[in-house]
């Protein structure tokens, strides 16, 4: 990728982040519910509410507050939580690590499982194996991750005793045990995605197999497998990479629910309680960070796809 392209992409990313941050800020000015009533209770006097609003800075105009917030955020300061007596960055630090670790493990599982499985399904010509893959895929896709999570807790936790549900240890305390615990929630998030990505890759390979260059490859004496690996795979994987990047956002969203099921103190639980508490600084920070992750993942996927397919390098 040329330098000019990268600069362009980065500018687009910055623009996206500005818009996201603006709407994250705006949304919580519009939705009903005021943090002061949450903090002081519904019986509070008008004076005490006004005093608190002034203390929190809520009495100043919207744009002034937005610019103040965003300039501070750029320096890593997302303000103080209204509810917990600590800064947002402090509050997020540990929990963000947990959620990112969970997401990363789930994402890795998806990539490591779905690409070989998709290839295997595409290269196997037995109709029975094909049907088995299809049925299994449908089944896994149809069951929502939280339910898979419950099943995994029951089976692997309570019956097989591979892990102790509800005893999550922060990665800062014991990284190894933390990762082992996270394998199960990650699997719950990953399974439906593995089935989807596999299906996607398989149909993508199926589409490529009918193209002219495949016939050319055969005409040079390549076997079916050689054609699949040397010619088709790289072509077929491009839409799959884009699809995986798109699912990155869903994976983070999925982990929000799964954290509840597995009692993991990650960003997801914090997000839910903060929304109901109208703890705006926390919610805004989480929204912006999640958006940043999504934008970064898509950026990386773009670069990867341009490496894979030279035609995408043209503008």
């Amino acid at each position, binding site marked *: 990728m040329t330098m000019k392209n990268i600069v362009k992409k980065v500018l687009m990313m910055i623009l996206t982040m500005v818009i996201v941050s603006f709407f994250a800020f705006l949304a919580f000015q519009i939705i009903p519910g005021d943090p002061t009533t949450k903090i002081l209770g519904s019986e509070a006097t008008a004076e005490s509410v006004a005093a608190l609003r002034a203390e929190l800075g809520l009495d100043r105009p919207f744009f002034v507050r937005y610019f103040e917030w965003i300039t501070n955020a750029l320096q890593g300061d997302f303000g103080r939580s209204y509810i917990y007596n600590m800064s947002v960055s402090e509050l997020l630090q540990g929990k963000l690590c947990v959620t990112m670790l969970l997401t990363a493990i789930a994402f890795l599982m998806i990539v490591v499982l779905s690409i070989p499985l998709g290839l295997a399904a595409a290269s196997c010509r037995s109709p029975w194996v094909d049907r088995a893959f299809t049925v299994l895929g449908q089944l896994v896709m149809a069951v929502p991750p939280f339910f898979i999570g419950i099943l995994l807790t029951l089976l692997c936790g309570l019956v097989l005793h591979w892990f102790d549900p509800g005893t999550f240890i922060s990665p800062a305390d014991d990284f190894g045990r933390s990762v082992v615990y996270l394998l199960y929630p990650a699997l719950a998030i990953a399974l439906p995605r593995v089935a989807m990505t596999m299906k996607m890759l398989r149909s993508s390979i199926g589409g490529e197999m009918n*193209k002219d260059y495949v016939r050319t490859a*055969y005409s*040079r004496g*390549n076997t079916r497998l050689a054609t699949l690996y040397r010619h088709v795979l*790289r*072509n077929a994987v491009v839409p799959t990479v884009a699809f995986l990047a798109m699912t990155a956002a869903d994976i983070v969203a999925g982990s929000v629910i799964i954290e509840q099921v597995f009692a993991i103190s990650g960003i997801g639980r914090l997000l839910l309680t903060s929304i109901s508490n109208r703890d705006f600084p926390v919610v805004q920070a989480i929204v912006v960070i999640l958006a940043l992750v999504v934008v970064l993942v898509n950026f990386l996927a773009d670069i990867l796809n341009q490496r894979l*397919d030279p035609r995408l390098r*043209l503008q």
Partner: protein
Amino acid sequence: MLEIHDLHIRFHDADHEAVRGIDLTVDTGEIVGLVGESGSGKTVTAMVISSLMPLNKAAVTGAVLLDGEDLLKLDEKSMRKKQGSDISVVFQEPMTAMNPVMRIGPQVEEALRVHTDLPKTERRQRALQALRDVDLDNVEELYNKYPHQLSGGMLQRVMIAAAIVSEPKLLLADEPTTALDVTIQAQILELLQRLNRERGMSILFISHNLNVVRKLCSRVAVMEKGLIVEQGDTEQVFREPRAPYTQRLIAAIPTRKKLW
């Protein structure tokens, strides 16, 4: 060198045969034209000769002898050994016939990679030579380019280079100039002619364009609805066409005379 005897091809999902018993020979060093309109069975015939016909799609009977060996009787492994080494194919659409995400070089030397144990550097040397042989310039640079960076005419030369790199006995050219504009067409035809002359490589040239066939081929076979209705010396066929179908085809060639 190539002898086709009583070839029948029937697609499983069709109620009549696509090819209904044809005989055709291509001698060593000869360019034979196979002409006919679309649907006449000429491309299907080429697919069977090059073993690109999926076996589960059609029933094929008869014999396709390459130097006396019946290609239809070979198992898959022995067939693969012929593809790209003894028989090479140049297709109609060079733009889509090349893998868009693979550089030119590896595609040109692919037949060598599949069929020989030549080391990488040697394969590269031969690929570069093949690219020079088809009159391409700056071959070192070309080697590292991607198909979309080249024009259609250049790509067809690259396809021809890829086809001749393994020095095949027979080159199947399936409408190789149809997708190209007229000046490029003429250059590609000259190139094929030269390769035939210099290397003694036999060419089966499939086309619906009679003018092109007349220019290039020493012999011609005319196909209609799965049958060869006429074959013989090109000039003879053009001057005194016997089959009514051939007469109509020749009458349909646009000429300048008719306008004035």
